[in-house]
């Protein structure tokens, strides 16, 4: 009978089924490797964002993040196989950005559980609802450029607490990050996404009051002077 001696953590013991167990172990390892090779890579966008250096508007704004926004996920397809190649989860960082940006722009920001809940709350001047309409990724392996790129199209809505329309406008954000030696795709996409999110925050904070409908509404609220 063949016996195998195995040394584990300094203890010597006899294991008659070692050969069979090792066979099962290597088969499982091979299966895991095979499955990993075929599955899509998940990239969770992470980053921190500075608070914008702007003068606050004396307004109390309710913000509502719907399910699609807070769990936003984009799937990049492999052109050759048609399978999912990368799953890019940006919802958490989108919310982190807005939760940093909005309190710097408005005097007070209240996060709402639903749009309707604003009507029952007193003191809310407006309700802001961001949404992502389009999300695009440019990978160096596909674009043949030495940069990772992210482009996002947003739809922003601002309404009064009773639901009356104030403004509905489109914003785009773009970010790119140079491809570096030995850099992973995850890191490249993450860097580009962070640049895109900063780009959105920059154009939102500096351009918010200049959107014609909002400008008109701010004047009607005596927030801005003629």
């Amino acid at each position, binding site marked *: 009978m063949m016996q195998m001696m195995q040394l584990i953590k300094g203890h010597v013991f006899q294991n008659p089924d070692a050969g069979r167990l090792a066979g099962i172990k290597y088969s499982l390892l091979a299966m895991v490797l095979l499955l990993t090779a075929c599955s899509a890579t998940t990239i969770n966008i992470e980053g921190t964002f500075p608070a*914008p250096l702007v003068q606050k508007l004396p307004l109390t704004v309710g913000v509502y993040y719907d399910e699609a926004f807070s769990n936003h996920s984009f799937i990049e397809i492999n052109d050759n196989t048609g399978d999912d190649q990368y799953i890019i989860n940006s919802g958490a960082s989108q919310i982190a950005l807005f939760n940093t940006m909005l309190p710097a722009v408005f005097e007070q920001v209240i996060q709402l559980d639903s749009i309707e809940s604003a009507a029952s709350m007193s003191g809310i001047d407006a309700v802001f609802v961001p949404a992502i309409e389009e999300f695009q990724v440019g990978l160096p392996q596909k674009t043949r*450029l030495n940069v990772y790129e992210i482009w996002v199209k947003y739809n922003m809505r601002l309404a009064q607490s009773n639901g009356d329309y104030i403004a509905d406008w489109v914003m785009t954000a773009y970010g790119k990050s*140079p491809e570096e030696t030995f850099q992973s795709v995850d890191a490249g996409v993450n860097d580009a996404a962070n640049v895109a999110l900063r*780009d959105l925050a920059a154009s939102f*904070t*500096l351009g918010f009051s200049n959107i014609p409908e909002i400008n008109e509404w701010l004047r009607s609220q005596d927030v801005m002077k003629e």
Partner: protein
Amino acid sequence: MGKTIFRDSKMKQPTLFTKSTLPIPAYILPVLLFLCSCTTTEIDEFRQSSTSINNLDETIVILGRRQNNNYETEQSFVGCVADVVSRGENSITVVDEQEFLDAMFPFFEPRTAPMRTGHLEQLMSMDVAAQKLEEFGIEYIVWLDGITERSEQSGSISCTIGPGGGGCFGFGTWQDDSNFEAEIWHLDSQSSVGSISTDANGQSYMPAVVIPIPLIARVEANACNGLGNQLKNFINGT
């Protein structure tokens, strides 16, 4: 009355990579040492106004331009130039780029950054921005724009590995070309005081006899050192 233009030194700095021992035949060594890693750096300076800085309470910030579609000035290069300027004789206090961008957010992002000195007036008219720049003690803003490109790649190296060991054989070569320009803005006068451009290029070689031997031309490092030292002298007015 026209502005005086000084065309400063045009420097050529050939540098040789030296290694005391290389595992290659002796007759190849002198040839390789002659050829390898020779870098030429050329620096041009264009001065529009006189400059000076009080190193006790005045600082500068060096920022990379990131508006170009095809490339963006690498943060590592900006950091390298800042490091050169803030070290050695006549060193100048340089505010960290990322710290400045975060503190001044959103005024120096790729989409919102001032592209011309005329935009500085608009920026300084905003109290929050002007106050923050004053807190940093910024006297000069330096915009760096450029890229290092690789070209003329040729040769091939093949590597094999077997039960008895492995090894590589072949020869590879490429050329690196660094082109950077620094534009210096004076914050108080809201004007451009000059610019410095650097062009460095060099050929790298990688012979492989069993093991690959990288003989790398330090093109970007030389461009960084040349530009950083020239910038330091320019701002100090020396």
